[in-house]
């Protein structure tokens, strides 16, 4: 995370720890790394967020949740601004977030950007099965149930699972 906290913004960051991604409800917006900046001026607060994927339909819900939580905590007015640059990367996801993802049954993103290239038919990225910890897995489809995930299957325990692809 690229943020600094001080005595004024600290309570806001604490509140944001409890604003969850509606599609992956174990991850907070901080775990995801989408909160880029918080500024507080008296009762007024501005939160700057960046989308994970361009078309992520969860962004509007996330925006509204942040607003609701901060208003409930007594801040007013609350503005949530969206910026696109610099573009979000899974490198911004917290270690805590990766642990929670795995516990939830979604393989967390690998640390290196191995998939954002143009080489065709390359050997699948090594992804660990979140159920039995085997590395003996294969990719079924590079697109999954949401924009941020790919579909994998474990060759050992045979369970299919989502992989939060590195981006």
């Amino acid at each position: 995370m690229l943020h600094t906290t001080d005595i004024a913004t600290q309570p806001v960051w604490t509140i944001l720890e409890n604003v969850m991604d509606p599609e992956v409800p174990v991850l907070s917006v901080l775990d995801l790394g989408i909160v880029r900046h918080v500024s507080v001026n008296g009762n007024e607060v501005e939160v700057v967020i960046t989308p994970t994927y361009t078309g992520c339909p969860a962004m509007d819900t996330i925006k509204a949740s942040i607003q609701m939580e901060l208003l409930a905590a007594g801040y007013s007015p609350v503005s949530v601004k969206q910026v696109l640059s610099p573009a979000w990367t899974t490198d911004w996801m917290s270690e805590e977030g990766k642990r929670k993802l795995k516990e939830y049954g979604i393989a967390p993103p690998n640390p290196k950007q191995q998939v954002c290239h143009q080489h065709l038919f390359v050997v699948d990225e090594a992804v660990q099965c979140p159920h039995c910890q085997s590395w003996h897995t294969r990719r079924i489809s590079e697109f999954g149930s949401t924009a941020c995930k790919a579909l994998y299957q474990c060759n050992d325990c045979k369970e299919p699972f989502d992989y939060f692809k590195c981006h």
Partner: protein
Amino acid sequence: MFLLNYTLYLADNALLLGHRNSEWCGHGPVLEQDIAITNISLDLIGQARNFYQYAALLKNDGSTEDTFAYTRDIREFKNCLLTELPNGDWGQTILRQFLFSNYQYLLYEQLQHGHDQQLAAIAAKALKEVTYHLRWSSEWVIRLGDGTEESHRRMEQAIAEIWSYTGELFIPASYELEANANGIAPDLKTLEVSWLQKVNEIFTAASLSAFAKATADKVYMHKGGKQGNHTEYMGYILAELQFMQRAYPGAEW
């Protein structure tokens, strides 16, 4: 004015192809590929939203992203004809996606370093996703072209159907020329060279011959979309896309 038009051009391409791809939802040949094409759809519609939001800011007359998508009439849409063509079979959809992703990839690669900050930010963000689209569609062109006799035949047929809609991608409209002169948009001539190289590379790997023939014959190229002169398919798309706002202006969820 050129900046608004150029932004709308980028938005309309993304919206129309996104809309066409979304027609596959629930109809894909297998579940995983149905999910893939609709994910691509989602990315494209997301891009369109970002561009329309910026266009609304530029226009500054109370327009919103929805005004552009739902209330403009056919002549105001600037998308290339390629993006509005019917899906055809899976091969034709794949081919169109490859040809367009190849274009979008090269375009955004330059746009992200252009002089307009917001367009550069949208492009840099989208480029990561377009990389997936290009890789996925390239692999499928090869798989189908170099697959069975039937899949090969259909890919050749798809090329015959849509190749003549690719020329327009590289014929600049006035707003593209101005955007280029202002250091915002790339030169389409340079883009075309890289685009053709990639097409050649993938078609060769896919054992597709029609491409060589198409260029040798210097086929007629359709154009006009960038200026708002669309195919007969466009009106049907808008009828579906805009029905709610036409029937119930201002309706909201």
